């Protein structure tokens, strides 16, 4: 028994080292006092962590990514919550097809979505880069929004709305007074999942990003093509912390993992 415990901890230890180790390394690589990316770092300092905040393009792309993540997710929820509700509660003609269409952006590789949007929508209709990115991110998050909200609707019995109607609610009132308060956790979870997904998204934005208008991950990729200095490591570490903090807080406050 002792031996088996040891063996199982060895396996878990190795797996976790493989999965988590690189982040530990990147945190230290970003804290290098030297000018090149190396491990072990040449002395420790916070200068690269501080430098990240002074790089103009990082600041601009951070703002863009934040905006896309927040507003893209909100738009996806505005479209997705009613869709999830309708698909969950009513037998619709062709609901399987609607489900497939709404879920499709998750199945088709992002780079193809980005390219197709660029070539047949953005260029012909002369969208600005920001508008194009906004639409693309909304489409990308829509499947997550529908899925997460659906699963929390599944846990809510539909006779709740009937009870509300019999007490005098209209269908719309029943949704806002009874359904929405009870799927709030699911909607917030969908928001967080959508936010993280959008913020970390690369392939869809790859073709759509234009000169001077780039999402943060794309900006990091192009920065890396020029130099391997530790600032990208520092930025990566900061972003990792941000994502983990958001998800950790969500789990504590909402029981995030119940919905995802």
């Amino acid at each position, binding site marked *: 028994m002792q031996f088996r415990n040891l063996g199982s901890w060895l396996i878990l230890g190795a797996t976790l080292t493989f999965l988590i180790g690189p982040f530990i390394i990147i945190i230290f690589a970003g804290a290098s006092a030297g000018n090149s990316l190396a491990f072990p770092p040449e002395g420790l300092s916070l200068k690269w962590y501080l430098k990240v905040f002074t790089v103009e393009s990082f600041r601009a792309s951070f703002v863009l990514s934040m905006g896309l993540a927040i507003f893209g997710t909100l738009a996806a929820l505005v479209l997705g919550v009613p869709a999830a509700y309708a698909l969950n509660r009513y037998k619709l003609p062709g609901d399987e097809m609607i489900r497939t269409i709404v879920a499709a952006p998750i199945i088709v590789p992002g780079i193809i979505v980005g390219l197709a949007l660029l070539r047949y929508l953005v260029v012909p209709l002369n969208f600005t880069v920001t508008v194009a990115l906004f639409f693309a991110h909304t489409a990308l998050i829509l499947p997550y929004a529908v899925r997460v909200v659906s699963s929390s609707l599944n846990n809510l019995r539909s006779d709740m709305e009937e009870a509300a109607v*019999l*007490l005098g609610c*209209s269908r719309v009132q029943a949704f806002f007074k009874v359904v929405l308060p009870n799927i709030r956790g699911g909607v917030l979870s969908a928001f967080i999942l959508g936010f993280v997904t959008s913020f970390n998204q690369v392939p869809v934005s790859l073709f759509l990003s234009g000169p001077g208008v780039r999402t943060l991950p794309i900006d990091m990729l192009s920065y890396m093509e020029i130099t391997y200095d530790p600032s990208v490591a520092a930025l990566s570490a900061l972003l990792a912390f941000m994502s983990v903090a958001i998800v950790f807080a969500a789990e504590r406050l909402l029981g995030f993992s119940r919905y995802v």
Partner: protein
Amino acid sequence: MSDAFVRLSDLTLSYGKSVAVPDLNLDIREGELIALLGPSGCGKTTTMRAIAGLLAPTSGRIVIDGRDVTRLSANKRGIGLVFQSYALFPHLNAFENVAFGLRLQKLPQAQIRARTEAAIATVGLTGFEARKPAEMSGGQQQRVALARSLVMEPKVLLLDEPLSNLDARLRLEMRIELQRVQKATGVTMVFVTHDQAEALAMADRIVLMRDGKIVQLGTPADLYDRPETAFAAGFMGFENILRLEDGDLVSEHGRAAVGYHAQAPMLGWRPDAVSVGTGPLQGRVVASSFAGGHREYVLDTPLGPVNANAPVSLAQVGVGEQVAFDLPLASARPLFA
């Protein structure tokens, strides 16, 4: 009948293409406690949902208190429904659940408070106002659901399998409670159940349904003592039902010449009506169990299995032994198809 408070006329209810209830006619009197009884799929819940307005009839009319409500939407009918699952709003406490409908009517605060507290008192839950549904037992949740409907002073209160989610002790308590509330408020109550004991114990009248049709309508005593069909008799505890052909009792297992003559094509006996120990028929005991006041036997007979109850004063017959028994004509209930 002019005293109908709720009248269903020629009501046809269907889900898509499948007809659940064809052409139903039923009158319910004011202040009556009526049970819709039947096995699952008999149309009882469908009928109840149609009265509530949650299901639009394919054809026919529903009149409540002299007003045709057939096309009136559910939120304007003034009907209460206690759901089988209670359907309490999980994000609201007991008080807010009960006050929900009154708040929608935008009544003055003081009135909402007074009526809500009164309704909560009626169901005996004073002191539990601040509890959320998740913090209450099943029985308490059901009382909240009941109060939430009662507070709206509905013309008709519908209850969907009101006792099915409660344990045996609570079930008895709630049965008495529902009757008490009904008498106290005088509300017309329609409840749906598949449990004949429940219907017999609570209802003023029972509507026995099968395949969307009313099989028999009457008082509990009517149904219990005088079922008219084999189906009704089976539901009311007539466990031995046999066909009568040319003076012989006939089942799918065989026949026995008894020389009975009756108007009905079938005869039914409760286990109590079967006499064990004497009689012209023979059977072998395959199971025997002690049930307090009597002993329950299952006999293997040429007519198939026969269920019989015998007083404990009678000598016990062991499993495997042959025993004489009788299906007396005098205690048989004549039945029609």
